[in-house]
């Protein structure tokens, strides 16, 4: 397996994205007036968790920023600061920068201080906090060591205390502990050398120490990791058994530690119990009679006799040094305010139970519960390499083709439809479809992450043009193929910028027109008849068609005398070269025009259309296939060629009668359908397979519907089948072919082209109605 820390790091960045998402959600709720403490907590926790993880990986920039942000949110959480709209906008900006920092850290990139600095300054000023760089630095983490190897795994096994000679000397009938850590018998000479450094520790726990779950025995063991120790227990305060209060501790200890380590290391052992005990640590060297701090709240008396009987091993240690080691006995145990639940006394009259204490604790109420040993894991999800999923998608595609071939063979073999083979094949077809849908679902994700990114675009772009803009979103949980989401980011960004920059009027104009001061941009996603429809709309002025047309004429995109419908004028925006450097504003113009947006959408098998109402606003509608891999298609024959028409483009099929057809001059016909007229296109002629027919009476047409509401009738020779086909891209090999979306392999192994009906109709109607430019006018 690869480096586990690298995996955790990768997973951290994924978690960060989730946290950033809930951060945005929380801020949005706050912006909407939600003052629920849990909402604020969610925001706080998101920042807090990012900081925590970042600390572990030594991502200092991220930690620093997150810390300041967290501090500000803590003020909000504590109710010391009540954010207004401006403050929340600043929090949004912080969230955005936090996201930048996360991604920069992930990609080993950097975020300029010039970006973070001013925001932090504003944040501190707003919340009224002093800059607290010092504390932040204090926090700077020790990067997590990746070496979990030898040192940790080979922790020396602690000697079993119960194995100590039972004859260990005792004080007042109770044993003292002597814990040599794996060391040879001490000789006086050896001691003379080793005892020059070390400490004596006097330790008298208060009841609260036991109540907090601390255990003196473990502290002594920790001391033994520092050096050799000898421990003497003082039981002088133990009352008679009939007076014993089990909730009160009566023991104290003296420990002599022989070590090269500093006093600090010794103190660290007692870190958790500091304040819960009487603790005195004195150096062992030289004149040992270091005086205890004057403030030490203990009454001491020297019990030399006790030393001799209690710790004979300690005596040789002491003797070479002049003053005898004094063992202090606390005569007045400080009573604690709260009686603690019974604490396991680490020293028992029965030696064998010494080491049993923790074991008892482990099994709780003496009923040993054996844990399974299987770690309890949080909710089960699996991260899978995208390549594996794509491989699965491809295989399912092959399966679909194979199934189609099999069906064809069965049909050709002339088996009756109710034969077992045919019914079996029917079930196989259903299963194949189910598998395919399931596989597609693996790749699908809610579009929410993309929408949240747009929130930032709106905030930044509105700030840069000085407009007051609010983004509304709907359908965030609509699931869309992952690749589609990724590839939508750029076009959508551009459209949002456009909406803010060009779509919405200036604040003054809005007020003049009696509109709300705040402009609205709405982003919605929904599933509609087998496709994903994403709409970007604004409540701005609408497209100024006169100006658009004028500009198109100036740029010679259309002839000066062109007669265009509103919809055609709107679609001029998608023409390459419509936007030029002259009016590319700081914002929307980043070298991308709407033509690029359109081709990005088309590359995804999608279409884009505009509807605009003067004074009310503009809506861009993007329609995308659910999947990029398979489509339901109608197999048709035209001029001896087999073609596939995407099923979702077909509104209905009909056979033409004489009364349906109306001629509009040479080569141009319309079909009358339920009172409306629809242009007739001969598919064979449009694709250049043959010349237009003389008569279409009795012919079959497919009624094609488009996003913009326009319709067209496609004349074909025959309808052969309706089936799922696997899309095989052509663009890699042939570039983009007008009117053709892709190709597929049919059941009989034949290759068929898949039509892009909208493109085809657009091309065709463009040619018939506006003779001049070669560009497609209708998307």
């Amino acid at each position, binding site marked *: 397996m690869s480096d586990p820390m690298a995996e955790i790091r990768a997973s951290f960045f994924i978690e960060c994205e989730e946290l950033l998402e809930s951060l945005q959600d929380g801020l949005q709720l706050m912006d909407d007036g939600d003052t629920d403490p849990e909402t604020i907590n969610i925001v706080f*926790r998101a920042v807090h968790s990012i900081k925590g993880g970042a*600390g572990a990986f030594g991502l200092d920039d991220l930690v620093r920023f997150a810390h300041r942000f967290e501090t500000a949110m803590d003020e909000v959480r504590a109710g010391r600061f009540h954010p207004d709209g401006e403050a929340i906008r600043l929090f949004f900006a912080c969230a955005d920068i936090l996201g930048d920092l996360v991604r920069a850290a992930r990609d080993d990139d950097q975020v300029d201080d010039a970006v973070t600095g001013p925001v932090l300054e504003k944040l501190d000023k707003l919340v009224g906090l002093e800059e607290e760089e010092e504390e932040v630095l204090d926090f700077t983490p020790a990067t997590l060591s990746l070496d979990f190897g030898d040192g940790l795994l080979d922790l020396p096994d602690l000697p079993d205390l119960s194995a100590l000679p039972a004859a260990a000397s005792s004080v007042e009938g109770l044993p003292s502990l002597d814990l040599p850590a794996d060391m040879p018998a001490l000789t006086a000479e050896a001691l003379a050398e080793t005892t020059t450094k070390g400490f004596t520790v006097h330790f008298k726990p208060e009841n609260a120490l036991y109540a907090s779950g601390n255990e003196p025995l*473990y502290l002594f063991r920790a001391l033994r990791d520092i050096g050799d120790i000898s421990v003497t227990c003082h039981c002088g305060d133990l009352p008679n058994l009939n007076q014993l209060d089990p909730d009160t501790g009566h023991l104290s200890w003296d420990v002599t530690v022989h070590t090269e380590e500093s006093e600090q290391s010794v103190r660290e052992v007692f870190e*958790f119990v500091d304040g819960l005990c009487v603790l005195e640590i004195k150096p062992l060297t030289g004149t040992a009679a270091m005086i205890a701090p004057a403030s030490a709240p203990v009454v001491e008396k020297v019990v030399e006799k006790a030393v001799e009987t209690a710790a004979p091993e300690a005596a040789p240690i002491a003797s070479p040094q002049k003053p005898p080691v004094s063992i202090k006995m606390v005569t007045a145990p400080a009573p604690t305010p709260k009686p603690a639940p019974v604490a396991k006394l680490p020293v028992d009259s029965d030696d064998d139970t010494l080491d049993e204490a923790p074991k008892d604790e*482990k099994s709780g109420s003496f009923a040993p519960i054996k*844990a399974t040993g299987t770690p309890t894991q949080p*909710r089960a999800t699996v991260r899978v390499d995208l390549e594996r999923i794509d491989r699965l998608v491809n295989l399912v595609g092959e399966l679909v083709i194979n199934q189609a071939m099999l069906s064809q063979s069965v049909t050709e073999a002339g088996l009756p439809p109710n034969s077992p083979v045919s019914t079996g094949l029917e079930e196989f077809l259903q299963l194949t479809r189910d598998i395919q849908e399931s596989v597609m679902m693996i790749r699908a994700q809610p579009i929410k992450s993309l929408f949240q990114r747009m929130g930032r675009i709106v905030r930044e772009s509105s700030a840069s043009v000085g407009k007051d803009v609010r983004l509304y979103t709907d359908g965030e949980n609509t699931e869309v193929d992952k690749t589609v989401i990724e590839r939508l980011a750029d076009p959508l960004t551009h459209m949002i910028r456009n909406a803010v920059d060009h779509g919405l009027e200036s604040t003054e104009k809005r007020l003049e027109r009696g509109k709300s001061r705040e402009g609205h941009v709405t982003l919605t996603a929904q599933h509609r008849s087998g496709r994903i429809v994403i709409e970007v709309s604004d409540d701005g002025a609408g497209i100024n068609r006169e100006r658009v047309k004028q500009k198109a004429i100036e740029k010679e995109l259309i002839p000066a005398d062109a007669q265009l419908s509103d919809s055609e004028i709107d679609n001029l925006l998608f023409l390459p070269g419509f936007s030029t450097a002259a009016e590319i504003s700081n914002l929307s113009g980043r070298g991308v025009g709407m033509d690029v947006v359109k081709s990005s959408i088309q590359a995804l098998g999608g279409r884009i259309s505009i509807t605009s109402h003067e004074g009310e606003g503009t809506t861009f509608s993007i329609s995308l296939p659910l999947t990029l891999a398979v489509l339901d298609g109608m197999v048709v024959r035209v001029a001896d060629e087999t073609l596939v028409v995407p099923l979702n483009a077909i509104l209905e099929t009909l056979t033409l009668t004489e009364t349906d057809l109306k001629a509009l001059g040479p080569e141009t016909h319309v079909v009358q359908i339920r009172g409306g007229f629809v242009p007739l296109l001969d598919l064979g002629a449009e694709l250049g397979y043959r010349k237009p027919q003389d008569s279409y009476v009795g012919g079959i047409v497919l009624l094609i519907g488009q996003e913009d509401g326009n319709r067209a009738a496609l004349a074909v020779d025959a309808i052969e089948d309706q089936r799922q086909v696997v899309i095989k891209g052509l663009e890699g090999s042939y570039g983009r072919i007008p009117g053709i979306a892709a190709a597929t392999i049919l059941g009989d192994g034949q290759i068929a082209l898949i039509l892009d009906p909208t493109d085809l109709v657009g091309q065709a109607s463009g040619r018939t109605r506006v003779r001049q430019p070669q560009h497609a006018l209708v998307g």
Partner: protein
Amino acid sequence: MSLEVLAVDDSRTMRDMLNLALSSAGFTAHLAEDGVHGLEVLEDIHPDVIITDINMPRMDGFGFIDAVRAEAKWSRIPILVLTTESADELKAKARAAGATGWIVKPFDPAKLVKALQMVAG
């Protein structure tokens, strides 16, 4: 000595790291996402020591410690609090809540093991 440890933290990253540090030290790690989940896990296992984060959804660390200490069968399990702040105030708060000790995030695995041994042997 191999310890059985319950680690409660809402951050997946932190849980992963605790899991790695604990299992690398030869300990058995049980993981929970928040206080409520932690209490559920405690119904099935009896760890030698508990490590818990403070800021968590549903039930935070203080609530969790309270609940553990209130239950007789768990009341003496040592509890280490994970905190990002080394501030004395927080330590005091952790202790007041009934924690045995604390680990400052980000933790050094060696120190984590040491702290565990200081409270659980």
